[in-house]
């Protein structure tokens, strides 16, 4: 097996909670707490979870838009967490990001041409003439027209803006694209257009995606493998077929059974979990899900389950499986 394109080991991000006149650090919000996974070339890894689970923080740390508190990120054999800011900036040519809000992530004062040209200027790719040609070329690739280059973001609809966001990410010919909720601000019919576009681009340009979203239907559609996060930790990770057909972690089971299905005939046994997600500043001891888990055992309150491979390619952190229990 070839070396994975991206390897994440024990990634952590603690945000300090300061209080008092002297701004003493009272506690930490453990937004991401010991997350490890790999992404292979050409695949799409979906990351799902509810708000506050740390999925966006994880995405941002991979690009070092946020500095990790601890842990290592290897991309293409290089350790990203070791690079200087300048070296990292060069690396970002290969890792690009698509953001959620197509309204907030495009500068309203710049024309589309200027917005798309920016990454080429920063990374000093080509001469001005070539850059212009490339802008027009990529506008066509994402389903817009070259005459759109002279317009401003407000002249576009949400779906078109997201296409521009995708075009901008593609300008530097990246290997990996981290898409953070790229379709959640879009209407259903537009969402389908953007998802299809992303799939086409992946095939054509041999891209690797990390697709962060909260919509489980969307994630299944686009992902080869899916990771489920809960309160800053990876609860389960498997290829999407086995995760959706045979979820092992009680949280994944509950999450899947909570998604409304557009079919009035569809019935299922609902695993309704009680209560809300606890605060990440003060996460429960042991397994973080134990406060809401229908299968809670004594060990869950005291011991953190190990994130371990239970079946081939299917990892889970839950004491129900002997692989997760301490030996």
């Amino acid at each position, binding site marked *: 097996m070839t070396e994975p394109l991206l390897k994440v080991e024990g990634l952590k991000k603690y945000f300090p909670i300061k209080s008092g006149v002297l701004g003493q650090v009272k506690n930490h919000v453990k937004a991401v707490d010991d997350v490890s996974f790999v992404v292979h070339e050409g695949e799409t890894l979906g990351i799902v979870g509810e708000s506050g689970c740390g999925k966006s923080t994880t995405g941002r740390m991979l690009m070092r838009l946020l500095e990790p508190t601890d842990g290592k990120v290897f991309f293409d054999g290089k350790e990203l967490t070791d690079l200087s800011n300048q070296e990292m900036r060069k690396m970002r040519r290969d890792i690009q990001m698509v953001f959620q809000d197509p309204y907030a992530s495009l500068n309203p004062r710049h024309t589309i041409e200027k917005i798309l040209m920016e990454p080429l200027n920063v990374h000093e790719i080509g001469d001005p003439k070539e850059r212009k040609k490339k802008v027009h070329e990529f506008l066509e690739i994402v389903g817009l027209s070259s005459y759109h280059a002279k317009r401003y973001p407000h002249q576009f609809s949400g779906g078109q803006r997201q296409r521009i966001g995708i075009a901008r990410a593609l300008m530097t010919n990246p290997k990996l694209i981290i898409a953070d909720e790229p379709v959640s601000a879009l209407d*259903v019919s537009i969402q389908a257009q953007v998802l299809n576009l992303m799939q086409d681009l992946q095939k054509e340009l041999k891209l690797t995606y990390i697709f962060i979203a*909260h919509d489980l239907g969307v994630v299944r559609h686009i992902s080869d493998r899916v990771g489920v996060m809960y309160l800053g930790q990876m609860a389960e990770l498997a290829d999407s077929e086995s995760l959706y057909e045979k979820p092992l972690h009680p949280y994944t089971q509950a999450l899947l059974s909570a998604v409304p299905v557009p079919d009035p005939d569809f019935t299922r046994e609902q695993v309704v979990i009680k209560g809300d997600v606890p605060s990440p500043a003060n996460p429960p001891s042991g397994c973080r899900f134990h406060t809401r888990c229908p299968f809670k055992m004594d060990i869950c309150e005291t011991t953190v389950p190990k994130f371990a491979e239970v079946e081939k390619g299917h990892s889970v952190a839950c004491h129900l499986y002997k692989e997760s229990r301490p030996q």
Partner: protein
Amino acid sequence: MRERKTILDVKGLKTSFFTDDGEVPAVDNIDFHIREGEVLGIVGESGCGKSVTSLSIMGLVPSPPGKITGGEILFQDKDLTKLNEKKMRAIRGNDIAMIFQEPMTSLNPLFTIGDQLREAIKIHKRDWSKKQIQERAVEMMKLVGLPRAEDLMKEYPHQLSGGMRQRVMIAMALLCDPKVLIADEPTTALDVTIQAQILKLIKNLNETLNTAVLLITHDLGVVAETCERVIVMYAGKVVEEGPVHTIFKDPQHPYTRGLLESVPDMRFKKERLYSIPGNVPKPGSIRTGCKFAARCEFAFDRCLNENPDLYQTADDHQTRCFLFDSKEVQAHDRTVVKS
């Protein structure tokens, strides 16, 4: 099952916004009714007029620039569009209540939950004693499944999670035993596990209290799981109306079909999603013909020039599409026979 009485009847409602570009009809001549104790869903994409419809019923259309320019909304033989503000206030929150999308912004952060619940009762039940009011508030808090109701009454909104706030909003809406509850995207801001809890609650309350619910949402999954009948809106018009089962199993309007096919289904992986080409038109930009014609793969000359009516295709099922006009169907049959 006995025939249920119509409780709210909307006839030819037209709500427009008067902007610099002239009159923009957000809701354009829509008809529908809600029966006693049923859950009716209105589904559509952003800008289709579903929220303006609910605001029109509540008399909450921001005016200016908005105005109800035609039609009537009949509730208990009264036309709500003709009522003055004072009379409307007696109905709003009392007979017809509403919950909004954002449980974060619809509660006042400066008052305790108890203050806000008690105020809502005080406005409508002037002869109630303090004790009665307090008891009623606590009772509703318990009914919507909030733990330690008495303590929560003394807390402020920021101390509650999103799901709990939405429960408080539902409790508040139900305080005066409304006949109709309008829920405008009640779960859109919530996580799926919390959404499942809230939808279950709304459904339970509908069954136990027999409150009719008008559920407005963009999520087809939510509609399939909670509603009995559905109205599909597009660009200010009702394009299809029918029982939930028919709409999902035998959709007729090309827009409804396209919408259903573009939803990624969690249960299986489709190779490729169907996508409706083009964008939702700006309100008021299409003056003649079917509003969906530009994006419709079945569109023919007539669609561009005439406005389709709602055609009855089965009991309780109507579609605004010329493909279902009996004239077209006959003409089409004739050509088939000829050839």
